[in-house]
């Protein structure tokens, strides 16, 4: 009986489970509820994804009010694809979190942790599903507030300053988006994305709309940590509890990239953004700098979580690069990378969390000798690391393949080369950690300690992600068809214009 309501369920299930967690009060019950609800959302998202692949866009009018008067839930393949990744990762992270936060978070806050996690999930699902520009802002803020809370639960006091910085930057970003949406509304009188897109087309070159776009892009760029607005991200991911880092690194910034895609391709249209405003050159330049600067930063860090955080910023550069190539293949590569990167970063952060649990440190020195002591964890780290590098038969290779293809299709040989060179830096920063793990003797940090393999509850989700990395590196049919359909849908207007010319 709920078949037609499926699009809205991934939002309201976690939304209702969050207060229930508080009412339950007991942390293990809260954990169970959160995990089950998240898993259920995942199943629904996958179902929705398959439905969109068959039937195209799903639209659902909240409250029975037809858009543009009411708020519309609008799920196309791009949303459904990222939604599946987000809910899937969330489920795995929750399974993982039980053991992980037991060590890193004070027991009295476990229930709050699960509640905040569910709220964050609600926000992310909402952003991905909504078809209304202002509603997107609301959900963005739900997820952000929950995120600040989650980050501040870390055990190191530096998580507080990290969370505060994140809060200030995030709020500025959100306010910028608010300004931009206000300008859109001012000129068009509507907030529904599709309706907006129809009406913006009349105003090509309008100064208010241009400014609105600029503000939205800057705001979203803060949220997605596009260089040089990424300064909040490394401390936040470093000092947050590992489960939180794993979740945020693989979902939150990706969802922000999705928001950017949505605003550029659905609302404004590629024509306006890239031809009228020439945003592609700016984005391209920033993406390239992000890839190199932040990959380089990653190679000189001694805290492994910071390494991964900088790596995340660099990887976001790849996604933006895909978008800035202004082609269906480029966008597809970007979307693919959103999905694939979620898989790899999730696994990497989980592995690091396991190391933190067993050794009490995430310094690169703590990794020395772990290849023997925690073989399964380090094997997972290795495979996920190879995926980041983009070694064939891993998911990372697939997205890089399409990214370079997209660049070459535009005859951008230099950019193609730079993308590949960026992978070399990944070899260095992943390689350093692997070298420590496999070739160095245990350092004074861990010497003499009896270090055991991570508990089952952590290994299983970690390895599920690792296997997903390999699976989606070999059997690409699902991800490719989803990303392809999504990119086709999003760039429809663009191809129509090109055809007209």
């Amino acid at each position: 009986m709920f078949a037609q309501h499926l699009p809205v369920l991934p939002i309201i299930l976690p939304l209702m489970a969050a207060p229930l967690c508080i009412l339950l009060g007991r942390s293990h019950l809260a954990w169970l509820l959160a995990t089950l609800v998240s898993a259920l959302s995942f199943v629904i998202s996958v179902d929705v994804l398959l439905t969109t692949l068959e039937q195209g866009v799903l639209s659902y009018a909240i409250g029975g009010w037809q858009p543009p008067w009411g708020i519309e839930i609008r799920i196309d393949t791009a949303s459904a694809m990222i939604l599946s990744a987000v809910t899937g990762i969330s489920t795995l992270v929750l399974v993982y979190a039980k053991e992980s936060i037991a060590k890193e978070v004070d027991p009295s806050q476990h229930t709050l942790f699960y509640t905040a996690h569910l709220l964050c999930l609600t926000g992310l699902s909402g952003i991905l599903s909504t078809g209304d520009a202002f509603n997107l802002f609301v959900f963005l803020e739900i997820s952000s507030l929950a995120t600040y809370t989650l980050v501040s639960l870390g055990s190191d006091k530096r998580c507080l300053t990290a969370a505060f910085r994140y809060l200030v930057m995030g709020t500025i970003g959100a306010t910028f988006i608010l300004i931009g949406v206000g300008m859109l509304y001012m000129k068009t009188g509507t907030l529904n994305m599709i309706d907006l897109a129809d009406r913006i087309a009349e105003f090509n070159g309008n100064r208010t709309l241009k400014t609105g776009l600029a503000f939205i892009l800057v705001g979203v760029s803060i949220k997605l940590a596009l260089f040089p607005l990424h300064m909040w991200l490394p401390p936040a991911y470093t000092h947050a509890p590992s489960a939180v880092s794993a979740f945020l690194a693989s979902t939150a910034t990706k969802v922000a990239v999705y928001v950017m895609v949505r605003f550029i391709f659905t609302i404004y249209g590629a024509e306006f953004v890239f031809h009228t405003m020439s945003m592609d050159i700016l984005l391209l330049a920033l993406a390239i700098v992000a890839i190199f600067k932040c990959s380089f930063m990653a190679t000189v860090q001694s805290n492994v979580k910071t390494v991964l955080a900088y790596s995340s910023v660099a990887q976001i550069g790849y996604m933006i690069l895909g978008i800035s190539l202004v082609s269906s293949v480029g966008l597809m590569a970007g979307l693919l990378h959103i999905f694939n990167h979620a898989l790899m970063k999730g696994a990497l952060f989980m592995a690091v969390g396991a190391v933190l649990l067993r050794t009490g440190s995430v310094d690169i020195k703590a990794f020395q000798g772990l290849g023997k002591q925690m073989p399964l964890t380090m094997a997972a780290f290795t495979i996920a690391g190879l995926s980041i590098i983009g070694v064939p038969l891993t998911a990372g290779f697939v997205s890089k393949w399409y990214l370079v293809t997209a660049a070459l299709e535009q005859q951008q040989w230099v950019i193609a080369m730079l993308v590949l060179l960026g992978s070399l830096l990944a070899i260095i920063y992943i390689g350093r950690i692997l070298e420590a793990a496999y070739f160095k003797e245990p350092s004074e940090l861990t010497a003499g300690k009896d270090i055991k393999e991570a508990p089952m509850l952590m290994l299983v989700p970690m390895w599920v992600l690792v296997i997903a990395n390999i699976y989606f590196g070999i059997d690409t049919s699902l991800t490719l068809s989803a990303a392809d359909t999504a990119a086709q849908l999003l760039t429809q207007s663009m191809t129509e214009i090109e055809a007209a010319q």
Partner: protein
Amino acid sequence: MNIWSTLDPAQLINLTIVVPLIGAAFIALFSQQPNLREGVSIITAVVLFTLVLAVTDNTFSKLSMETTWVALFPGLEIAYSVEPLGVLFALVASFLWIITTIYSIGYMRGHNEENQTRFFFCFALSISTVMAICFSANLLTLFIFYELLTLSTYPLVTHAGTKEAKHGGRVYLGVLLSTSIVLFLLAILGTWVSAGTLNFTPGGVFTQAHSDSLVALLLVLFCYGIGKAALMPFHRWLPAAMVAPTPASSLLHAVAVVKAGVFSILKVVIYIFGIDNLSDIATTDVMLYIGTATVLLSSCVAMTKDSLKARLAYSTVSQLSYIVVGALLASSVAAAGASLHIATHAVGKITLFFCAGAIMVAAHKKNISEMVGLGRKMPITMIAFAIAALSIIGLPPMAGTWSKWYLMVGAVEADKMIIVVVLTISSLLNVAYLLPIPIKAFFNTPSGDQPAWSWSETKEAPLPSLIAIVVTTTACLWLFFYPQPLIDLINLIPDVSTELKGRP
């Protein structure tokens, strides 16, 4: 000869790739029982060889063998298709694997190495990837297994676990991964985007429609991207990889890895660019001269090296460039020579490495200067060394003669006399850096008076190693007298022939 005739030919390919993997699994399983483990290794090697023989048989009977594993991207699969050049390489690699396994047993036990299971395990893995490279039907498949080969041989390079080994391993991985990811992958993608296919197609995939500068650029990218071919200045990894245990060096860095590199170049030249179109490409000559420069320079470097393995390593760099030069000469005869050189150089160089390893195990000597008079202690090893050295130099009656001959003929055919000159000079250089070693060993004596030589004085390497050395030395000779099967095989390669064009 074909004991697998009951099998579907397409299944043979799968088997050649899977059998070493199964072997590897058993090796890991029997890690506690060395005899059983090494037994498994040898059996796997033999089975693999018979499989490759069966494939060869089918190739001669023009049976097409193809199989597809999985479609990685739309229109782009991990697929295999047998063609003669790959068969040639597979034959060489699988045959030498048997020998090397036998040799390793002696070497590893004689040397009391640690982590022997890991060694044999990775060995089997890398052979599996080599088989996949041999039979790959498109560049993507080739690339994937090319990378896997790098990764699976990395533990072999760093086997010793010393600081030196790690440094060597880092250079090895660094150079090979960087070149392959940045240049090779870029070249592949460039081909994919412009030509729309990555399948190995006789005559090449590029047409007149493709811009000349694009094709020229791609050629450079391929030549340098395939770092395993050790074209200067990306040759550093090869000497660095010599920190590996000798059996690993011998098989992988004289046969499997480097040959995978030049094999890839040959394959790209023949099936992606097409030999006939090669002369139209602007950068062919540039790369050709870089190849010849590599030939000469690395020979010169080799002369300065005292460490035997380092000298052999630079010799390998030089010899690999023969193949690159042969491939780029745009002549069918030179290509044939290059293909044949894969086989002849392999047997020659592996013998030399075996000898170097034997000297290390039996006499614990690494440097050439210490080998004075060693012929008395290790006569068989040093004789083998001398024969193999002659083969590398290209003197009859050794196998190397044929490949050099065809290369020279090809150079003449391509009207590039300078190459002929360079090859000749290079042979002289070979003489200069290889022959002194056996000469010193046999004819120089450390001190004036020596008692007459007797068998009791000898202290040869362990028996398995010795057997291996003898077998490969025999192969050096054998291939001089009976090169015909290989030449027949090479003549099956499209556009490649040992006959000069225009003459009946």
